[in-house]
């Protein structure tokens, strides 16, 4: 097997493929061999349980999907007791996605999570009324939440940024100054779907978060912008559907990538992408994936 390993700050991942938060749960282990993945990010955990948004919560768009889930989760206590021990059994790097409605909540959740590869701080969910991507739009808030989380934990901290701002470099810089080990660029894009029968927005919260191949060039551009402005490892995320997309992200400057909704389209996509990355390296005559930017 070829060496696909990548460096993500102080971490060495066996390959750049990370499963994103909010798209998988344990039943996926029946289909995907998790030990082949570079890492996984679990569904967002908040201090208190969150019921999530009323259905409908999802619909298809051209080459993509738009969701309004609303961070449904059973809260920190349940997570520590029931989910974290199971996560630790997956033989890959585990990143715990944390979510709060206030700096205090972020701190409380961050302080409790131990013995995983890192935390991903979710300040960019477009589908909740309190907190969510309002945090990620303001570099000052990005800085203060990142700093507060970093003070509570010894774990590497990744900050998941929103794409819904003009200058994502500024929030990436704020995350860096707050002590983040890396940033994820980026979360879903807010978008609208109208139900033509009811003549109303499909989702009760009006907008949802758009993901899938439809957003790939937009998210890729965010990675490129950050790479050229801020010295921080970037996890590229948005619309990856095959190995060529992964290469585009790596060449644009990402250290690793996250796969999201593509696993709805094809649950075996992560494994197929890994196999195809190997073929590509072999065809190019490279030794490993670190040579991806070789001219």
């Amino acid at each position, binding site marked *: 097997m070829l060496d696909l390993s990548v460096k993500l700050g102080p971490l060495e991942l066996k390959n750049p493929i990370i499963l994103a938060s909010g798209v*998988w749960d344990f039943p996926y282990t029946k*289909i995907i061999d998790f030990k082949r993945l570079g890492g996984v990010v679990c569904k967002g955990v908040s201090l208190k349980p969150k019921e999530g948004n009323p259905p409908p919560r*999802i619909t*298809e768009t051209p080459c993509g*999907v738009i969701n309004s889930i609303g961070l449904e989760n059973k809260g920190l206590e349940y997570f520590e007791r029931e989910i974290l021990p199971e996560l630790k059994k997956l033989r890959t790097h585990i990143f715990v996605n944390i979510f709060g409605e206030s700096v205090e909540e972020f701190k409380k959740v961050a302080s409790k999570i131990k013995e995983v590869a890192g935390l991903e701080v979710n300040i960019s969910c477009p589908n909740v009324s309190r907190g969510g991507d309002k945090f990620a739009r303001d570099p000052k808030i990005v800085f203060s939440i990142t700093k507060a989380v970093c003070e509570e934990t010894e774990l590497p901290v990744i900050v998941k940024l929103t794409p819904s701002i003009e200058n994502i470099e500024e929030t990436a810089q704020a995350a860096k100054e707050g002590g983040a080990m890396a940033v994820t660029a980026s979360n879903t894009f807010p978008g609208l779907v109208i139900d033509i029968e009811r003549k109303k927005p499909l989702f009760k919260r009006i907008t949802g978060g758009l993901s899938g191949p439809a957003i790939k060039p937009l998210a890729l551009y965010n990675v490129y912008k950050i790479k050229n402005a801020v010295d921080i490892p970037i996890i590229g995320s948005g619309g990856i559907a095959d190995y060529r997309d992964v290469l585009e992200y790596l060449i644009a400057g990402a250290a690793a990538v996250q796969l999201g*909704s593509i*696993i709805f*389209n094809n*649950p075996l996509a992560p494994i197929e992408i890994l196999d195809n990355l190997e073929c590509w390296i072999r065809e190019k005559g490279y030794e490993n994936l670190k040579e991806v930017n070789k001219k």
Partner: protein
Amino acid sequence: METTFRILPVLENKKLGPYHKITLKDAQMYNHAECGNFIMIGLQGLDPYLPRPFSFLEGNKESFSILVKMKGRGTELLSKVKKGDKLKVLGPLGKAFCPPEKGVLIAGGIGIAPVYYQSGWMKGGILFYGAKSRKDLILTREFKEKGFKVRTITEEDGGLVTDLLKKHTDELNGKQIFICGTNEMIRNIKRILNIEQIDKAYAYVEKRMGCGLGGCKSCAVKTVEGYKLVCTEGPIFPLKEVKIA
């Protein structure tokens, strides 16, 4: 139950009433599929992006079939597949259950598919079946051959399945009841049944679904214990627990 994701060839696509019955060639799926299970089926490529959940209709050692109703772009494209085309198939999914030997099945429209599949595990009972028009009623002969008493009604003839139930409500007493139809139909049936009947009734719930594996949390249905996911905790729920909006 062993869930797999595979690319399977279409064996046949034929009209059955207003629907398309699509048969896929496969020797494994039906061995693993149990009563209550469903599958996700997707076209190859990235558009349409999402697979769609389908109930099994029937199966054997060489193939299994689903029933497709054209509702939107995805099902329209799916209904056009031809012999030899390949489809993405994830399954079996969902919580299986053990149906009674005899019981009451209530179906509206394409809701006939899962109850027909369920009837394969049963030795008879009663089917209450409503559809838009007489030509939309399918599989009634097959139900009779399986030992079911079949009661049908159509909107063309001026009635809904709930009207049929009101007339024969005594026939439901003491029996397990399984319902598959629109949300409105399930809601209205819940109003007609008495407490004892509701206690023994179950509903097949349909929701927009993203993954089928509990990953996306999209297919939430309100229950007395809060939201539950249709894909991993359903698709069948006790009628008394589920709150159909």
